[in-house]
């Protein structure tokens, strides 16, 4: 019984923390990019974010980027030139890869920004749900 109460308190606490909110944001993003995948393989270059992604349902964090469905990059500017889907977790990465990444979630101008790039989404045959349409930009 105590364990259940602890789980409940932890769930409530995490939902109100920055990490909890960031998890909800990434859960929405990943579900929108991969609506039909049973398991989404994610590769991260920022080990501090691992705990956030590991607790998202359907997401499996992989160590080998070749096995990943999506690369979430914070500070990597040199990744293999294959056709993997790239999503930026930092402004500098977003600027660097904006010709090929599908979007980014990063701090800029004192606020968190979520942006998807229309042309690159199209290149990967990704169609976002209507709830995220307002975050799609034609050109950066």
């Amino acid at each position: 019984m105590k364990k259940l109460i602890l789980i409940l308190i932890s769930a409530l606490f995490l939902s109100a923390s920055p990490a909890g909110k960031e998890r909800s944001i990434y859960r929405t993003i990943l579900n929108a990019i991969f609506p039909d995948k049973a398991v989404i393989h994610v590769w991260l270059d920022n080990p501090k974010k691992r705990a956030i992604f590991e607790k998202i349902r359907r997401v499996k964090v992989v160590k080998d980027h070749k096995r990943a469905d999506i690369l979430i990059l914070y500070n990597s500017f040199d990744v293999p030139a294959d056709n993997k889907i790239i999503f930026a977790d930092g402004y500098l990465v977003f600027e660097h890869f904006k010709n090929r990444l599908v979007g980014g979630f990063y701090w800029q101008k004192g606020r968190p920004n979520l942006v998807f790039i229309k042309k690159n989404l199209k290149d990967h045959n990704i169609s976002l749900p209507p709830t995220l349409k307002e975050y799609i930009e034609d050109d950066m």
Partner: protein
Amino acid sequence: MTKKRISFIALLCSATLAFSSESMDDLLRAFKSESELSKITKSESAGFLDIYTREELEKMQVRTLMDVLKLFTIPNITRTSNNISQFTKPTFAVMPSYAIRLYVNDHDMTSTSFGSALMLWSDMPVEYIDHIEVYKSASSVEFGNEPGSVIIKLYTKKPEREEGGKVRLTADQRGSAEADLYYAHTTRDGLSYFFFANADNVKRKTYENLNHKLDADNHAQSFYANIFKEGWRLEGGSYRKVKDTFLGLGRAYTPNDGKIENRHNYIQLEKMYDNGLNIRAGYDHLDSYEKESDNSGIPAGATGYVTDYTIQLHDKIASLIAEKSFTHKNGKLLVGGFYKFKGLEAEGAFDSQSTSFSNALHLYSLYMEESYSFNPTTTFIGSFKGDYYRYEKRIEAKKEHILRAGLIKNYGPVQIKAFYTKTYYAVPFLYLYGPDDTPYRVNPELKFPEPILTSLGIRYKESRHTVDARMSLITVKNKVLSKPDGTLYNNPKGWYHQYELKYSYNFDPRNSLKIDLYMGENASGLTMSPKYGGHIQLFNSFGKIDLYNQIGYRSNCDFYGVNIDPTYDYTASVKYHAAKDLSIGFRGENIFGTGYRQSYVRLPYSMPIFDRKFWLNLEYLF
């Protein structure tokens, strides 16, 4: 059965959390709110804490620190006859400015030999400030610097969250204008930098007294920059302000002329090691110039009353601070020490008399603070600080110390904080040393005031409601007072008590309400400043519009025979976000002209502290 019920509730809650239909806009807003830097920087153990978040400051459309100081419950802000910002505690005519310390990041801005640099920095622009923390019933041991009981901590915007810049232009109906610019960037190799520049020209209402014009206009320029890499932070700033002297210092307040010019430049290098060691080296240079002219006579200490009065002060401060925090399984131990050199040079001309002198202070300090958690709900705080003051001329060396004990106890939604602080305030040595007794009748024998603060606070926080009740009893030994001829002396003992009641309610992440009430009383029974007061603040957002409403109240008081009726200050602002990066706003201050007032010795009436102003505000992010 009970287990089944709890399982069901847990499942229901988890499901609610997992599948909640928060829109992405709501999620981003909630993430921003939960990521407020104040949630990282605040220290609950340092005293009673009030926070002004970035979102609040932006909705309020504050321009200067003064717009926030106006909202302080205790102490209250007012202005002196010569147009310098000054604080009062409820019922007191004045509160010593050296009891209040202002920090920008980790740098103490108020470390001067001639009082407090707050008289300059109270008007500082805050566009480069992310958020403001105010600690009351504090001792400053935790912040590793000179003593004060009210600590105002300003934190600059973080480059890694800005990545870009902002231009802000403001103008008011009196012809005032102000421009702010900042820019921040982080490079790929982890070096981040931030710079800020500001210039303003503020016109204030002109009054008349006995056919003499009373001007209070001012203009200022300021600059701030920081560079950060791998635990090293270099930061520095410069602020210059020139202002008219309003009523001035003359006996009948009939100024012919008057000007105050202050300039403060500082630089600080800081290294933060991963093992908790922090080393800071800083250098400050302050210049203060005041010129007054009044035929009714300006008191100038032993020289008597003069018509023309000029004083120039130059202050050089060098400091080296080292501290280390040791984290253990039950809390944290902070151990630190610092050395400060303060050099003062003064020159003055008082009609045909002149004075010129200098002195220097070497200040050595060792301190430690333990935060020990007996269990997850009970934390004990114990602090000790020993200071040694050695002056180069005439003033005897002094040994002082600070003792502080505190307890923070949580009972579910209730938090209780209790503090006992035995501290002291260092008297500026311009009041201790001056070979000609001009312009002050100095007293090298003055002892430092020694307040003992006993404080109790109770916070109830549940869901969207937060209630704070605070009370403090303060006894002060050796308070510094001045005789009618200007001679400074120590009052053996006095006391006062003060109370604050605060309530806040968050309707949702974009709409909130704050209410505060305060009262205080001193041993003399005199009410020379408002005994009661309070504020109501309402923050709202609808679509692309931000709204802010603020009502302030201060009760009546009697200042040397002049009765000041209760005053009400209504301030409001509206901001329209025309585009993601462009907004236009409007802020009205003291809209009904019924705002706070102050009287002065021998002046038979009171004067408004703040003007009625309407500011137009244009902001562009790039």
